[in-house]
């Protein structure tokens, strides 16, 4: 549990939630603050209006009837209970109380005129007014001082209540949001922990493990599902790699064993120039075969893993077809067969000329080697709506339908072709080149024979990689 807690506290989800809570809290705080401020100032302005109206009336009384009228008006007002809450005080120039319901002039109020808040002086008839008072005061023309005010203690209490509500509200929001974010984070951490646990298990004990699904079909399940699919794919690929390395081991050991035996035998017998020469020549030839196979393997691996699309440019498949046919014409002739290029003169694809040439050359080489003795091999080029298509067609024994998927695998060789030279890598290279170019491979029955077809996608607009290509060509 404590591990989970530590993980929860470290979780990025929690951090994100805390940031959200912070922003949300600040907003609420600002909103409540505004409500408090505007309420308080509204109530205060009401009090100010009332005070101003009373001042006006008293000033008029003083103007028309002199000081005695003013004292009468003050007396009338302090006696009237309906005007409760009103404060009145008339003081002589020495601030001694003349009339009104305030004990004495508040010491806080100085000057000839003004407006201020103050607390009521202790004791006296105005003892009811314990809270905060607000008043305007002025010096009348005859030197007496007049104060008119109101008790704003209720308003103060009201503002205090708002402030308390605000504090409670904000604390509650923070607590709720905190609890919610911790629980959401724990859930997230829990799901991620399941994925982590599986990952660790895979690292420790192999690719057999899968991430458990909860069947909720939510985004976590989808993630787990995709990761599981990826694991399936990796497991399948690892299986293939193992198969390939087994094959490599076999195909390397066979010639190496041959070479070793030959050299061992040669070292045990007396030196004889002619024999030694032939042993050396045979060993070199075997070694070259091994190196060629090795080169093919690394070449396929590189094609499969490297991103060469930057060096892609527009290539005419028809040109490649005619060049391959020209190159292999001699080989076909040697077997007494025919090799022709037919079809469109222009079929453009975006790709790598060397690799495309190599792929087509491998297909033609296969067709000549495995096709009918003295047969006919045709390289067809067509420009369809969906893109360029190049097919290599022979009239040999073809490939059985159930073998089609396997022939693209590294080192796979059909029973019927075990005796012909080759290392079972040619079609793997073709497949790798096709994949790199986004081309689809079809193996069709030509009855009799095989029609190996590569369907390319439509060329993309002029490549930007032309600089790299130019550099490569210039360096040649």
């Amino acid at each position, binding site marked *: 549990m404590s591990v989970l807690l530590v993980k929860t506290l470290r979780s990025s989800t929690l951090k994100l939630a805390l940031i959200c809570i912070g922003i949300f809290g600040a907003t609420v705080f600002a909103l409540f603050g505004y409500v408090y401020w505007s309420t308080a100032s509204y109530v205060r302005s009401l009090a100010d209006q009332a005070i101003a109206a009373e001042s006006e009336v008293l000033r008029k009384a003083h103007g028309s009837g002199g000081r005695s009228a003013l004292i009468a008006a003050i007396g009338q007002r302090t006696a009237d209970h309906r005007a409760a809450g009103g404060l009145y005080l008339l003081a002589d120039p020495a601030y001694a109380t003349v009339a009104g319901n305030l004990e004495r002039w508040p010491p806080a109020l100085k000057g000839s005129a003004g407006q201020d808040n103050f607390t009521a002086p202790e004791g006296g008839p105005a003892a009811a007014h314990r809270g905060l008072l607000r008043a305007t005061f002025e010096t009348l023309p005859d030197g007496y001082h007049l104060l008119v005010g109101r008790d704003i203690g209720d308003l103060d209490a009201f503002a205090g209540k708002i402030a308390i509500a605000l504090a409670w509200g904000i604390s509650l929001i923070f607590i709720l949001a905190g609890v919610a974010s911790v629980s959401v984070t724990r859930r997230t951490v829990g799901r991620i922990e399941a994925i982590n646990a599986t990952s660790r298990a895979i690292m420790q004990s192999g690719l057999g493990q899968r991430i458990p699904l909860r069947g909720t079909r939510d985004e976590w399940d989808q993630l787990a599902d995709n990761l599981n699919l990826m694991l399936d794919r990796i497991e399948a690929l690892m299986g293939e790699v193992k198969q390939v390395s087994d094959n490599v081991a076999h195909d390397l050991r066979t010639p190496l064993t041959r070479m070793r035996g030959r050299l061992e035998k040669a070292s045990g017998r007396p030196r004889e120039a002619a024999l030694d020469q032939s042993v050396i*020549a045979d060993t*070199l*030839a075997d070694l*070259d075969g091994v*190196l*060629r196979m090795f*080169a*093919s393997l*690394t*070449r396929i*691996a*590189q*094609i499969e893993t*490297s991103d*060469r699309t930057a*060096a892609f440019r527009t290539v005419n498949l028809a040109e490649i077809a005619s*060049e391959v046919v*020209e*190159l*292999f014409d*001699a*080989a076909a*002739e*040697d077997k007494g067969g025919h090799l022709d290029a037919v079809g469109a003169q222009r079929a453009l694809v975006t790709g790598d*000329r*060397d*690799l495309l*040439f*190599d792929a087509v*050359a*491998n297909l033609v*080489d296969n067709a000549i080697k495995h096709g009918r003795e003295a047969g006919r091999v045709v390289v067809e080029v067509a420009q369809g709506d969906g893109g360029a298509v190049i097919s290599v067609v022979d009239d040999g024994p073809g490939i059985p339908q159930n073998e089609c998927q396997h022939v693209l695998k590294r080192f796979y060789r059909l029973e019927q072709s075990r005796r012909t030279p080759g*290392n079972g*890598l*040619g079609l793997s*290279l073709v497949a790798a080149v096709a994949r790199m170019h986004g081309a689809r491979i079809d193996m069709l029955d030509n009855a009799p024979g095989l029609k190996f077809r590569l369907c390319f996608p439509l060329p993309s607009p002029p490549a930007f990689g032309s600089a*790299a290509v130019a*550099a*490569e060509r210039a*360096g*040649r």
Partner: protein
Amino acid sequence: MAGGRRRILVIEDDPETGEQLVDSLATSGYEVDLSVNGDDGLARGRSADYAVMTIDRMLPGMDGIAVIRHLREEGIVTPALILSALGEIDDRVRGLRAGGDDYLVKPFAFAELLARVEALARRSATVVKETVLRVGDLELDLVTRTVRRSGRDIELLPREFQVLEYLVRNEGQVVPRAMLLQHVWDLHFDPTTNIIDVYVGRVRRKVDGQQAFPLIHTVRGVGFCVRAPC
């Protein structure tokens, strides 16, 4: 080719490979200096009186590509042959872009190495504009694109003519298959099939068939060589 300095700088960290390189180049009449790391190679390369240098791709300290880049930045244009144990597809472009002139993947046949070094050494020499090439009794007219041997016309396809022309231009030198493919077909890979042999075989039948002596020779495991009988 004749005269002048024929000094070669070999930058190679593996002692046995280095020794083999020095031996085979020395046997072919070159004076060879060996550097066992990039920094020493760069220092020697700066002296710039080498006809060709061969540079291992991966070296202790400064790697081969960095050595070439430094030399090129300093304006030293000694032709460089990169020897690499890395795969060809990406690394060739990288090496050539850094200023390398040719690229050979390890392991290689020494005959092929010699052929490429020879080709690079000759590149710096002046190219004579000839219109007719001759080897023994074979005559190639580069203007009319016709071939005659012992006064008799030989019919060749345009590409066959190019193959023969390239071999004749490199008379006496071994031309590796990959070089032929590169210069005649503009392809940069080593074919996994024996197709070049078959193709050259056909050219040979046309040129050497029913003749007193052959001109086109196959060098086993490497390539071809055009040579007049001595």
